């Protein structure tokens, strides 16, 4: 963030389709819908936006922010810094003021004159008497007027930034569809703000949104919503979950989509079962029971849930029961920062539970992959007969992202893996639950009830031989444990491979990243390349790491590993599982709970590269 100076010389920022607006509100004050409307209005103008909700772990009365980046170039990560602050929360005035870029703007409620508040000479004040204007709205109660203040500043912004009137009207019409009285009232509020700004603030704001054609048919959706939908498409029928921020909306999305897509039109019966469990241990237990019994089942949780589910993860790994677990990561450890983002459950998931285990993880970069990988994970879990962790985070999960429309290939078919049928059993196929008959270390299973007298077995977390019989024999135990290692090798060939992008010119520098870091990383590499700094990049999409990952690392002298946690957890995995000399890696860690920014990555990499350059020069 740039240090505010008091130099009155600074010129106000002038920019079109490339700036950041941040709304500072009090939560529970109804600002959310107005702010989202703002973002959608920019989209309607054909200009890409990305928005981030920074909210407290409470229901009403604490500070909350909504950051909207307007980016004609289409950058979807956080940029860092704020050009226009809509300061609606006296509690955070100073902090908000300080965050504004040199020559930026501040919109505030000018009903009461500014007296005690701090100000900055370089920041242009945009005063709108929101309270006063809202009081002019006839037939409204205080609570309504409170809400409408937000709509009034939306109107003012539409004037200041130059939205087409139709855009806002259409959105309001859509939002309050059917409720004409409300539509009128809100349009009136927009008008109030718009008129006031036009009359009193004309020419004061040099940030503009100009009609463009950069949005196309893209959709604006959150990762959790997409993941929930992906589970519907992936054939999940059982969802057992326990509420926890930021994962709750995965189960809620699955519920919403199931009610639309999975209710039998005739019988009105549900082709799904969703249980709010009593806690996370029960949730994962239900998921294992359902998968064991041949249904595709999943749970969605966050860090604390992952901790509580440890014992069951060990059972699932060792007894080879499929399961899909969405981990929408938040700030840890412990209760930590429930409403902030982090990528800090990686090690706990990778080696979950006591004893030796290795777990499969996939890392969606955003809503599209959240949808695709969600569906894919059910195939993976059944093919590999093991839990699959879909590692997302609050940033992907709870923010709306502007992304390509979701796609589904109707030719695609569910792959249930090695499930032996009654026919096969009758056909004389011999069944041994934990025997590696195909050489890929994946054994065959049967679903309870399959056959009257063939193919039953006993599932247990205690030591067993290849025939699922209880055994305390060292060699029976090690046989199974070694096969599990080989099965993990097989997993490498099934999970989504990494995505490599090479810089324009050959380089000894590489950068590895994953998940929600991707949008910021895309922008950072472009910026670096523009500065003539060449970095090849590799986006990890799964654990275990396939050979391309090792090749990429070996192909570079120095590799940045960019993570949103304190302890470089992914790097630890890379070092151990790919047998890499740790000195090869430079970790860039961003873990204050706010999504990583393009600025952070760009400057950190640039700085480090120039340092080594100098060293080389000396």
């Amino acid at each position, binding site marked *: 963030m740039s240090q505010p100076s008091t130099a009155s010389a600074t010129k106000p920022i002038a920019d079109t389709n490339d700036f950041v607006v941040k709304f500072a509100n009090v939560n529970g004050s109804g600002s959310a819908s107005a702010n989202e409307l703002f973002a959608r209005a920019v989209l309607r103008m054909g200009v890409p936006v990305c928005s981030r909700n920074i909210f407290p772990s409470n229901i009403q009365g604490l500070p909350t922010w909504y950051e909207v980046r307007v980016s004609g170039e289409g950058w979807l990560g956080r940029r860092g810094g704020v050009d226009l602050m809509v300061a609606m929360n006296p509690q955070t005035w100073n902090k908000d003021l300080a965050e504004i870029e040199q020559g930026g703007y501040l919109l505030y409620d000018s009903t009461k004159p500014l007296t005690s508040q701090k100000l900055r000479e370089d920041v242009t004040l945009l005063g709108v008497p929101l309270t006063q204007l809202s009081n002019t709205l006839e037939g409204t109660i205080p609570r309504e007027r409170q809400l409408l203040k937000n709509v009034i500043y939306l109107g003012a912004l539409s004037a200041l930034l130059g939205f087409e009137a139709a855009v806002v009207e259409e959105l309001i019409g859509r939002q309050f569809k059917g409720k004409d009285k409300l539509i009128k009232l809100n349009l009136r509020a927009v008008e109030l703000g718009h008129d006031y700004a036009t009359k009193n603030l004309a020419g004061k704001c040099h940030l503009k949104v100009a009609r463009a054609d950069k949005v196309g048919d893209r959709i604006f959706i959150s990762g959790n919503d997409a993941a929930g939908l992906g589970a519907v498409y992936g054939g999940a029928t059982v969802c057992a979950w326990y509420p926890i921020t930021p994962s709750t909306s995965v189960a809620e999305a699955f519920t919403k989509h199931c009610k639309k897509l*999975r209710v039998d039109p005739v019988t009105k019966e549900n082709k799904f079962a969703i249980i709010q469990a009593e806690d996370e241990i029960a949730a994962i237990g239900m998921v294992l029971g359902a998968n064991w019994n041949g249904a595709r089942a999943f749970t969605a949780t966050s860090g604390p849930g992952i901790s509580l589910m440890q014992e069951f993860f060990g059972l699932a790994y060792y007894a080879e029961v499929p399961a899909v677990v969405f981990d929408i990561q938040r700030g840890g450890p412990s209760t930590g920062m429930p409403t902030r983002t982090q990528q800090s459950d990686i090690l706990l998931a990778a080696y979950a539970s006591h004893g030796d285990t290795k777990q499969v993880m996939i890392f969606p970069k955003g809503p599209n992959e959240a949808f695709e990988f969600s569906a894919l994970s059910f195939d993976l879990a059944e093919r590999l007969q093991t839990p699959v962790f879909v590692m997302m985070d609050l940033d992907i999960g709870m923010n709306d992202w502007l992304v390509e429309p979701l796609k589904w290939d109707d030719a695609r078919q569910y792959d249930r893996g090695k499930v032996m049928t009654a026919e096969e059993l009758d056909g004389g196929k011999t069944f041994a639950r934990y025997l590696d008959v195909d050489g890929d270390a994946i054994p065959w299973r049967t679903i309870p009830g399959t056959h009257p007298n063939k193919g039953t077995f006993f599932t247990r977390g205690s030591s067993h031989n290849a025939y699922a019989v209880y055994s305390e024999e060292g060699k029976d135990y090690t046989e199974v444990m070694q096969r599990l290692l080989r099965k993990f090798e097989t997993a490498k060939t099934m999970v989504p491979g990494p995505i490599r992008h090479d810089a324009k010119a050959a380089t000894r520098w590489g950068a590895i990243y994953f998940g929600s870091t991707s949008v910021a990383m895309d922008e950072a590499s472009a910026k670096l390349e523009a500065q003539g700094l060449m970095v090849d990049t590799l986006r990890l999409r799964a654990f275990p790491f396939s050979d391309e990952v090792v090749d990429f690392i070996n192909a570079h002298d120095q590799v940045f590993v960019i993570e949103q946690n304190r302890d470089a957890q992914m790097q630890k995995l890379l070092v151990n599982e790919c047998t890499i000399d740790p000195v090869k890696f430079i970790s860039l860690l961003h873990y204050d709970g706010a999504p990583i920014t393009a600025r952070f990555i760009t400057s950190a990499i640039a700085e480090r590269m120039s340092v080594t350059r100098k060293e080389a020069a000396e």
Partner: protein
Amino acid sequence: MTYIAKPKFQHPGLKKNTVGYTHRDYEGRISTLCAGCGHDSISAALIETFFELAIEPHRVAKLSGIGCSSKTPDYFLGQSHGFNAVHGRMPSVLTGANLANRDLIYLGVSGDGDSASIGLGQFAHCVRRGVNMVYICENNGVYGLTKGQFSATADKGSKSKAGGLNSDSPIDLVSLALLLGATFVARSFSGDKKQLVPILKAAFTHEGSAVIDVISPCVQFNNHVGSTKSFDFVREHNDAVNRIDFITPRDEITVDYAPGTVETVTQHDGSILKLSKLDPAYDPHDRAAAMAYLAEKAKAGEVVTGLLYIEEDAEDLHAHINTAHTPLNKLAEKDLCPGSTALEAINEEYR
């Protein structure tokens, strides 16, 4: 226990039930429990029950937690799928299994440590959801497998083998099940097969959560004087409120009863329970009264057994959440995947 495997050869003369299975088809591996362990008698009662109810073994899923009691599913129904979950967590696994396929019969076997200590929460929530299952707690008042520590069902003041006295209030799983809305609640004694088997039959034909607390003495660690879970103590303090004759729709009724002494309960599947009341005052349809009765008798140190509560027209979890009658695990891809055209429409909603 003996180490010579039973000959698997089946005597042609072995009696078959109506679905063509012999008694032996319901047996399992040889028990590794202590000679005389109450749990083995319960396994035997289960084998008899399934044989006589003529349930095909593969239509049963047997689940358990961890403990001597939880080992037993390996010792009966060798032709059923089984699942030894982790300690105290069987109820959630059973719930999930039940959600996946409502057509199988679910048997949960647990111990008092597994159910009342580490597993209390899961037990309670599984019951209050009305999961269609038979949940048996093989209750010996101790942790057998870990060598005899008190469990949460040990009575206040009861003595451990080492001589220690229990000072915590006991958890009575039967009262708890009643409090939590279980629709079939019974208690029995591993030493009383005559009472246990009909109760099991009634439970397996009940549609809803059937909870059976079976006092099952641990001969190794809790069968001494001073224990309220010993064979002798239970025999001496057993207060059976009723006896059941279980009559399947197929059987014609042969026995006839003196009028007034017997109540007839007809279940979903048409099976009939003839309840001969031993305590005429006792009404197995009054939840509140049942709880009060149990509390009174507990004060007096009596062990109340019998069918304590039944709601013959109970509804299970699937009814509550309106799940499809076709088991979820049998739905095909076309039932589940909305396909690309639906997706295009969905995309539109997000523009």
